[in-house]
């Protein structure tokens, strides 16, 4: 990719500073003080609010009693990705949003950080808390190695299944490895969690694309059930002129290198425009600023109150000095003589109904003659990833919904009884913790369908 102007390189230590964890690991004393604040609610709202229903008061109590192994067990039994969830969950709208401390006009308990603190204890020491179940003679293949597959495979392994994960990427972990802002979660942290899953006997076949490297027919022959956890695909197109120019990339394409390559080796534009205002867009603009881009624009065709990014994500971008262009719709991307991105032209919009509610989307009207241009060297599309289900159409019986997601039953079984699916490819794109919850539920669904006998440990 060639760019008209690139962002200046920063001193190596500056990159590390810029991408330092935004929520660092607690010290033992911090954890003790925070854990002591927890009221130990009965039938606690935090646990109810968690998609994986981690018994939050129980694991926090165990931190208070210095029983960190027990604390981690409580967390990981409910959510094998408890470490990354502790770091990337939007806790403000989940467990911490439900904390009764809000009603007490006190700060909610820092559940996410405490959770990470407890799980770090066992990850640091390679303590294997769980064992694979006694083999029940059944085999399950899992396609994709993101949170849904990892959770599903771990649960199945505990039940005695032989599980094999097939994944086209070099590293396991899916979106956790490749798509989450580096200041929240590094790829190597995800690999520590992957090792937990591998420790249960789950086999990983990386760089193996199902449909080409191995056929569905082969999987159907070798395995008793197949789980699909492929997440989402590329970011959708803007459908405007200039989209194919050098310097126009999708959000995942932009973020992925920040996760798997040294920051100093990355080349980005000096001025960058990001289209969209979801949480992924925030990941893009904050990464862009932290990599040294001088001017970063976020362009959104609706108003500030309609952006789908969480408040605290928006705050991150504001603190990073991102320029926000509300009510602006990209019209075309302009090139310089060399064919590189040089500017983006937008039109002002007006929301017709004026509704501030996120759920009730307003109508957008273009304001004629309101064109304006921003000089940029790079344009990043962050208007939502599209489902990547074309390949499952090759499998007979799997139904795909209108929006491209895979249709499943309550136990996450697809139209083809042998195939189960969960995570973003089913729910259209939610949190890591949702993928874990669904993956675990799918494991139980597979187990129920196969009616496997329980082996003896």
């Amino acid at each position, binding site marked *: 990719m060639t760019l008209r102007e690139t962002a200046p390189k920063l001193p190596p230590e500056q990159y590390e500073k810029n991408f330092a964890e935004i929520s660092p690991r607690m010290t033992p004393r911090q954890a003790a003080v925070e854990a002591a604040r927890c009221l130990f*609610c009965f039938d606690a*709202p935090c646990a109810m609010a968690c998609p994986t229903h981690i018994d939050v008061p129980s694991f926090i109590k165990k931190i208070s009693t210095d029983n960190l192994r027990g604390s981690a067990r409580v967390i990981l039994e409910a959510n094998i990705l408890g470490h990354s969830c502790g770091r990337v969950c939007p806790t403000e709208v989940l467990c911490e949003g*439900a904390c009764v401390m809000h009603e007490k006009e006190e700060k909610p308990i820092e559940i996410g950080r405490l959770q990470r603190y407890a799980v770090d204890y066992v990850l640091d020491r390679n303590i294997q808390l769980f064992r694979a179940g006694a083999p029940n003679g059944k085999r399950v293949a899992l396609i994709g190695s993101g949170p849904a597959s990892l959770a599903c495979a771990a649960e199945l392994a505990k039940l005695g299944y032989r599980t094999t994960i097939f994944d086209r990427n070099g590293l396991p972990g899916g979106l956790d490895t490749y798509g989450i802002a580096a200041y929240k979660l590094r790829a190597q942290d995800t690999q520590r969690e992957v090792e937990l899953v591998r420790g249960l006997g789950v086999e990983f076949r990386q760089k193996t694309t199902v449909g080409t490297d191995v056929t569905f027919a082969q999987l159907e022959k070798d395995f008793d059930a197949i789980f699909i956890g492929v997440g989402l695909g590329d970011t959708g197109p803007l459908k405007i002129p200039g989209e194919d120019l050098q310097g126009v990339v999708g959000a995942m394409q932009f973020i992925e290198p920040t996760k798997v390559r040294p920051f100093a080796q990355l080349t980005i534009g000096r001025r960058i425009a990001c289209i969209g205002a979801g949480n992924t867009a925030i990941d893009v603009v904050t990464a862009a600023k932290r990599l040294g881009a001088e001017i970063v624009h976020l362009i959104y065709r609706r108003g500030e109150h309609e952006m789908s990014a969480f408040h605290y994500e928006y705050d991150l971008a504001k603190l990073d000095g991102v320029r926000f262009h509300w009510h602006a719709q990209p019209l075309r991307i302009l090139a310089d003589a060399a064919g590189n991105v040089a500017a983006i032209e937008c039109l002002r919009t007006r929301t017709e109904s004026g509704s501030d509610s996120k759920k009730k989307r307003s109508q957008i009207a273009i304001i004629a003659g309101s064109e304006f241009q921003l000089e940029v060297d790079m344009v990043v599309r962050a208007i939502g990833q599209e489902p990547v289900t074309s390949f499952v159409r090759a499998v007979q019986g799997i139904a795909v919904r209108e929006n491209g997601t895979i249709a499943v039953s309550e136990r996450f079984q697809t139209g083809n009884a042998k195939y189960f699916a969960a995570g973003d490819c089913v729910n259209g794109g939610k949190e890591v913790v949702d993928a874990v919850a669904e993956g675990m539920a799918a494991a139980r669904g597979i187990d129920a369908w196969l009616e496997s006998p329980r082996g003896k440990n």
Partner: protein
Amino acid sequence: MSDLSVNFCGLRSPNPFWLASGPPTNTGGQVMRAFDAGWGGAVWKTIGDPIQNTSSRYGAIDLNGVKMMGLNNIELISDRPIAINLAEISAVKKRYPKHLVIASLMVESKRETWHDIVRRAEDAGSDALELNFGCPHGMSERGMGAAVGQVPEYTEMITSWAKEVAKTPVISKLTPNVTDITHIALAAERGGADAVSLINTINSLMGVDLETFAPRPNVAGKSSHGGYCGPAVKPIALHLLSSVAKRVKIPIVGIGGIGDWKDAAEHIALGASCVQVCTAAMHYGFRIVEDMADGLTAYMDDHAYRSTESFRGRAVPNVMDWGDLDLNYKIIAKIDAGLCIGCQLCYVACEDGAHQCIERAPQHNARGKQNPNGMEIHVPRIIEEECVGCNLCALVCPVHGCITMEEIHTGLPPMSWKQKTSRTT
């Protein structure tokens, strides 16, 4: 404007706050700084034949991150020569004639030895004497301290020896490590004590290191029982104080778990003329007395108490035998739904730990308020006809004022267990 000064056995104390005999009163330098900070009196670290201490000496219990809820020590009496202690008492009294210096004394249980130390302490200028009959550790193994205070006859005898020669008030300090402290208090009174002070520290072992099995405080992997004090012991001190206040006629000095003016006022309300403080000063330094004086003054002003005598002992008659309590007095719990945070701690406490009088909120019983997550807050319901008025729900509720205990008028006249049983027999 109220006046904090106290007439104690004919002595004028600038206020009721004294430092107890202990590490904070080990030296003249400390005592003078304490007086500068505002303490009215100081009971000198117990004087006797110098001892040798161990290292370490103190152990503490923390609670939920709060440090030193309880403290214990295995430190003995002063490790400095008697002559040096007495010379420093003289020096302090010369510079602080209006403050009280009370010499705490502990010597061998010989009449002449006690006569000698009493004379020397008074010659040095002590305003009063406190006989240490309470030290529960170390010294008791040598036949002193609690070894005296646990036997009424010894307490009476040694008190009387001190009184034979003392010209200043004699305070006998009592140990709580007895079956009934009033027997000891009465023995001291019989022996002629001008006052008693209580409580000394409580026998304790602070804990065990689960890796080495060394008890705390650790002295080369071993430990010994020591004296327990600090905020945790106040309820024990208040009980023993009230029981002594009901029996003796001489003044009482309250000790045990006092860290602020409210603690001091409670001791005074249960009969104490003055109070002594040690752990809180060890924790935060002498400066704590400023708010003790300031807060007590404000309290007394608010209630138009001219002196501590205006409310001293007011709570004593309210401490009764259980058999005299009114069985027809009835309270039940009320939950303020507007304040409830939905933690369900009252529910689980009542259900598992008390009398099963609280119901989980049914789904429709949300109070219409939502947490930031959009979840409804469910307010538990008191089953009023079942509530026994035990207080537990109000005690566990983390929100101030959310659960209150409200009186239900039964229409029945007061009736105690004693009255009830005398009627039926």
